[in-house]
């Protein structure tokens, strides 16, 4: 279930029937606008083509009025039931949502049913007020945690983005010379868990930065580490963080396993919790 005080960004935590918590990124109003525009174009072309075909066929039999009538019925059906039918059949997606990789889910992460799909699209008319500007819906998404419009609130649904990143390989660090820094650092020097996480984020992104920017970012952690282990102040902080990254995640030379392997079972947390302490 949603934990109220944990959210600081647009990720929503969901617990599966397997009792695993995982996170969804809630779709932004802008993504939803794009999806809606794609849907609107599809709806317009479907109504246009169906109307022309109906008018042509019935016109051949001399009852053009019947053709216009059928065209209007198709207009009615498409405008009111397009979203509901697609979101039922396509598991919470319309063509527009599929093209932008969005999906409608219940707020607990389970799939929506036909009633929810139909109702949240009926209530679209309220969200599009005033004058089809969608200001009501925008206001509603702005003040709710899961970016829900009024139709979503009434149905207990939310729209999430399905990001598709490929599996990430570990970063091979080839561009800086690590061995000198590695030799300076004592074998047992490892970052704490949370710090290791932060360092991994830095290393994931460092290839997008130039040398000056790297030095600037790496300095904040590097300086503290250098002082703790009596490294010379001129040490390359970027290389230092790379060494720590490599020690934590990549290499498994036996002499470095001392701390992590205290539990000997890989699925268990190490008994001795490594804490990174700021020098007083």
């Amino acid at each position, binding site marked *: 279930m949603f934990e109220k005080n944990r959210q600081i960004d647009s990720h929503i935590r969901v617990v599966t029937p397997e009792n695993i918590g995982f996170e969804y990124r809630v779709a932004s109003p802008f993504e939803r606008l794009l999806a809606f525009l794609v849907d609107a174009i599809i709806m317009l072309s479907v109504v246009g083509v169906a109307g022309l075909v109906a008018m042509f066929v019935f016109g051949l039999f001399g009852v053009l009025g019947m053709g216009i009538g059928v065209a209007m019925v198709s207009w*009615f059906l498409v*405008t009111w039931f397009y979203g509901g039918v697609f979101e039922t059949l396509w598991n919470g997606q319309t063509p527009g949502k599929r093209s932008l990789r969005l999906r409608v889910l219940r707020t607990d992460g389970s799939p929506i049913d036909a009633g929810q799909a139909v109702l949240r699209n009926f209530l679209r008319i309220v969200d599009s007020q005033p004058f089809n500007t969608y200001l009501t819906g925008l206001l509603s998404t702005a003040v709710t945690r899961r970016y829900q419009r009024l139709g979503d609130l009434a149905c*207990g649904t939310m729209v999430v983005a399905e990001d598709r990143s490929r599996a990430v390989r570990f970063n091979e660090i080839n561009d800086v010379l690590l061995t000198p820094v590695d030799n300076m650092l004592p074998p047992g020097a490892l970052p704490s868990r949370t710090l290791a996480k932060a360092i991994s984020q830095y290393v994931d992104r460092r290839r997008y930065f130039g040398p000056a920017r790297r030095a600037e970012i790496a300095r904040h952690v590097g300086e503290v580490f250098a002082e703790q282990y009596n490294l010379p102040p001129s040490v390359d902080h970027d290389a230092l963080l790379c060494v720590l990254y490599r020690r*934590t995640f990549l290499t498994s030379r036996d002499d470095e396993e001392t701390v992590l392997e205290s539990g000997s079972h890989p*699925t268990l947390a190490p008994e001795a919790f490594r804490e990174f302490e700021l020098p007083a």
Partner: protein
Amino acid sequence: MKAAELVESRMADWRRLEQGCLRLEHPGRQRLSTQQRVEFAALYRAACADLALADAHQLPAGTVRYLHQLVGRAHNQLYRSRKFEFRQWYEEMFQRVPQRLFHDGYLRLAAAVFWGGFLLALFLSSKWTPVPEFAEAVLTRDGIIGLEEMYSEPLWESGDATGAEGLMWGFYIFNNTSIGLRCFAMGLIFGICGLFATVFNSIYLGAAFGYMTTVPQGENFFQFVTAHGPFELTAIVLSAAAGMRLGFSLVDTGGLSRFDSLARAAKLSLPTMMAAVVMFFLAAVIEGFLSPSPAPYEAKAIVAMLSTLMLLTYLVVLGYSDAPPTEEDTLLDW
């Protein structure tokens, strides 16, 4: 074991799960065999376990992010939306909805307001009125002229033979049903305005009906409106009642939070609204094909009586019960 080795050993399974997701996301392509489905579920559970232990394994942030989206993607393929089930909807529409409507306070309110206003306005603009200028005040001078012109000759003499009935049928479905759905949806923010719209419609319609009894064009007017009246007016009252339920759920929450209260009201009012949509369709068929036809007035009156009988059967015979079905006993469970 270091994180890199762990990830290296699990990567093959994650890739296979990704492949499975890709194939399930495009239902047009070849379907998964039974064997592959079993494997998909196993891979999903394995990925769940990897995610749960990500912290213990000290996986880096990028890998955790990847696992979150992989598990989410597979979760959406494993747990899918339930399809429309005819039997369940039949029970909902012909057993629980009439029973709910039978006990629905908002429907009684909407019906009382609508028919009360209608009959009052009808009386005030008929020839027995104590306020002779009432009809003109409500309908305006231009409205009265337009009404008189519209019904100055029988409708079937003005139409050409190019399928005008079909045109009007389509127009009525599009126009009237949209008005009903709009009335329902707008009830969400304007519960009070829905009430206002109901009052306005009832007074305006009542005045038009009453005024038409005093002029010679009245015969054509009643030729047109009689047959489809019951379905259309009932559908409007139903839409208004469903909309009011939405709007007032935000005011009278019954102890729930406002959003929960709204969700409960929405769940209860959607089937009512579907009943109203069906009535609008029936009314549009009658209004498009029978009402403007030269069929004798008696035939139209019989259709009106039959449809009234059907509505009474639906609301009273099917709906008669000691208490409304419990809220848990509903097709929609959110």
